[in-house]
Every structure is written in structure tokens, then in C-alpha cells.
């Protein structure tokens, strides 16, 4: 019996049960904090018809761009997709269904999904094309749009450290969408840089409690940088 031990040893185990036409959440902001090896594994598996929920779509040869290369994504929810030429091509040809979603609304849809809230009202997007066809309501003199929440078959998350029970700590801005996604997957798979024994992470410093996490795997990361901006020393 594994009990509460969430650690798996191989990427086959990490993504067992992930099949065609599933809905996936994929953490990251740009290329920062993406579960890069889980994505590479999905490209190898060749799963197709995927619906991906992710703030961005990677670049041509890294991140979700790898799944676009093999036309594995049928639909994507994202807030900004400007860095990817393959994406443009597939969107313009109609192969890829793109649901552009304001970044804060996307984050809240995922948070709400994980928290058991089916929808929420937000002022974001009222009076814009985003609100078309959606229920709106005036509350205390302000207009709001009803936004349904999001959940997924699999949430693919990148964290810095996990303990064997799946408690997670993120690092710097690699946190971004990962904590909410960890709560909103039927199966949450987390790729980390380090796995430590349960009891060694300070409970005061845990970002995501292990209850949300099903599988943890240790990876090694390229951590590609999109815009390397520096100043003189």
C-alpha cells in the first residue's frame, strides 16, 4: 500500500490514465514554472484532441509548443498567446479552437473550480467581446459578467519542492497558476526539483497541502528564459 506516499518513479506512472480528448490544466507563466518534462512526455505519448487550460501556449519548440507541433491540442483556454508562430498558424487555419480569457478571470475560474464554486460574477470584461452571450447582472450599480469555473481531468503542475506526502512549495514567480491548478484537477500530477521526506518541510511554509496532490515526480529542468534582461554589474 502506498498510503499517503504520492511519489512515482517514472513519467509513464506520472501520466497513467491520460488519454485522448481529455481536459488538462498546465501550470506556468510564459516558460516560467511549466511542468516541462510532463509536456515532453505527452508529446511522446501522442495523446490527441486535448483541451488545454494554460495562461500561455509556450514557444515553438518548448512548453506547449511541443504539443502544437504534433497537433495534439484541439482547444486552448489562454490569456496571451503572442509568442508562438505555430499557434498562429493553427488558430488561423481553424485547427485550434482558442478561447481567450482575461488573465485574472482565468486564474479565478481555476481557483473557483478547485474550491467547488460553479461560477462567479466579475466586472472584468463587461462591455467587451468577452461578455458576449454571457449572463450579466447589476449589483450595487456596477455591471458584472457571470463566468463559469473550470476543472480538468488532469492538472499538470510544477513546484520547487515536494515532500513524499505531496505537500508543495513553489519558488519565486514560478508559482503563478500552479497552486490553483493543483486544486482543480481530478488527478493532479506535480513535477518538482526536489523530493524530501514527509515532516521535513516546515508546515508554516507549505503553499499547497498534499490533499490536492495525487502524484509527485522528480524531474530535471532546462528552465528556459524567454527574455533575458540584465544590467551592468
Amino acid at each position, binding site marked *: 500500500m502506498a498510503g499517503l506516499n504520492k511519489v512515482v518513479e517514472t513519467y509513464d506512472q506520472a501520466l497513467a490514465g491520460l488519454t485522448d480528448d481529455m481536459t488538462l490544466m498546465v501550470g506556468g507563466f510564459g516558460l516560467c514554472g511549466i511542468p516541462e518534462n510532463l509536456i515532453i512526455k505527452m508529446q511522446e505519448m501522442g495523446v490527441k484532441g486535448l483541451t488545454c487550460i494554460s495562461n500561455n501556449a509556450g514557444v515553438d519548440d518548448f512548453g506547449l509548443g511541443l504539443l502544437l507541433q504534433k497537433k495534439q491540442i484541439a482547444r486552448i483556454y489562454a490569456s*496571451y498567446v503572442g509568442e508562438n508562430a505555430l499557434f498562429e498558424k493553427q488558430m488561423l487555419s481553424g485547427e485550434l479552437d482558442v478561447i481567450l480569457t482575461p488573465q485574472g478571470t482565468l486564474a479565478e475560474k481555476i481557483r473557483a473550480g478547485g474550491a467547488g464554486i460553479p461560477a462567479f460574477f466579475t466586472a472584468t470584461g463587461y*462591455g467587451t467581446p468577452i461578455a458576449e452571450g454571457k449572463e450579466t447582472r447589476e449589483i450595487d450599480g456596477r455591471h458584472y459578467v457571470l463566468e463559469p469555473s473550470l476543472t480538468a481531468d488532469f492538472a499538470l503542475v510544477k513546484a520547487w519542492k515536494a515532500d513524499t506526502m505531496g505537500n508543495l512549495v513553489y519558488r519565486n514567480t514560478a508559482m503563478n497558476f500552479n497552486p490553483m491548478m493543483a486544486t482543480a484537477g481530478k488527478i493532479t500530477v506535480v513535477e518538482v526539483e526536489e523530493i524530501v521526506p514527509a515532516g521535513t518541510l516546515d508546515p508554516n511554509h507549505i503553499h499547497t497541502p498534499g490533499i490536492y496532490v495525487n502524484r509527485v515526480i522528480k524531474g530535471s529542468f532546462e528552465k528556459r528564459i524567454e527574455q533575458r534582461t540584465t*544590467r551592468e554589474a
Partner: protein
Amino acid sequence: MALSREQIASRIAQELQDGFYVNLGIGIPTLVANYIPDGMEVMLQSENGLLGMGQFPTEDEVDADLINAGKQTVTMATGASLFSSAESFAMIRGGHVDLTVLGAFEVDVSGNIASWMIPGKLIKGMGGAMDLVAGADNIIVTMMHADKKGNSKILDACTLPLTGAQCIKKVVTDLAVLEIKDGAFHLLERAPDVSVEEIIEKTAGKLIIPDEVKVMNV
């Protein structure tokens, strides 16, 4: 002479106040960080999950896990904090950010802003702009007054799909500082050596000119 990007940024920096939490968009807004007056404490919010954005790192300090919303490598300022995207937009949507500065394609006399989509051209997405304009009370839009062909972008009604409706009150362009109220642009300041006539000529939306127009201090 119309203002340079740096001069626009320096003028916007005059709107900062000690103790402000500020979100700066990509482009000219980012440059505002270079003109924070000495001795003033301002905390920069980056919507990917950082409050207290510092300067660019030295080559040795570069950290792939530490970027801003423009995906540039950055550092953290003293007193910085880190959080999730949901928390970040709770700050924004909840009205906790004191000042938001962002760019636009068009603004109009009703305070509408269009900044994310040009039909027929590639659509890259709105990122956090729709949340920022919906959540902030104090927003400054920065943009060029007219496009390269001289067509005004300061309009009676935006022609492009909106980012937000009735949310913009102040615009700083390369020619002027404008306030939007009562269904019109009000000329508050003009750029040095830019005539009121030129501003009138390049403003398509209803424009109110007060008796005296201050010259921008840039």
C-alpha cells in the same frame, strides 16, 4: 516637439505618490519605473505574482524563476512578496493597487479603452489588461496621440473591440495630458513646443480647451 517615450514616462512618474502600489504595463509604462523620484517609496506589482519588482538582474543574478509580466528576468526589491496569479488578481480586481499605467490603441470620450485586438490582424490576447482596467480606480493610459499616418487615436467612440468600458479618466500622450469627464476630453497640459492648435487637429473626440493650458514639465 512631440515627447519621446522617455519623456512621456517621466511625465507619468509625476503622478506617483509616496507609498503607492503601482502596476506598470508593457512598453512605455515599464519606463516609468526609471523616473520614480528619489526618496519616494513605491512598490511595483507584477501580475504574474510579485509585489516589489526590482531592477534587472546582473548576469550573475539571473534567475529563470524570477520574471515580470513581460517575461523579462527581474530582481526583487526590499520588502517584496510572492504569490499566485489568483492572489495577484485579487489585489487588482479588489482595487488594492493605487495606480495602473497601461498602453492603448484607442480611447474615447466615454472613458472606453481598446488595447488588445485589431480584427483581421493577429489576436495575441488581452493578458491581464481587462482585469486591470476593471479593477483599478486610478488608471493612466499612455499612447501616441495619432498613428503614423496622422489619424487620431483620441476618439468620440472607439472603433476597435473594447478592453474595458467607461473606466479611463486620464490619458498622457506624446502631445498632451487629457482628462476624460462629462463625455469629453479636457486638455490639462500640452507638451513643450506643441501648440494647442496641433492638439486640436490631432484629437478626433470632443475636446474642451480651458482658458489656460499648462505646459508639461518634462
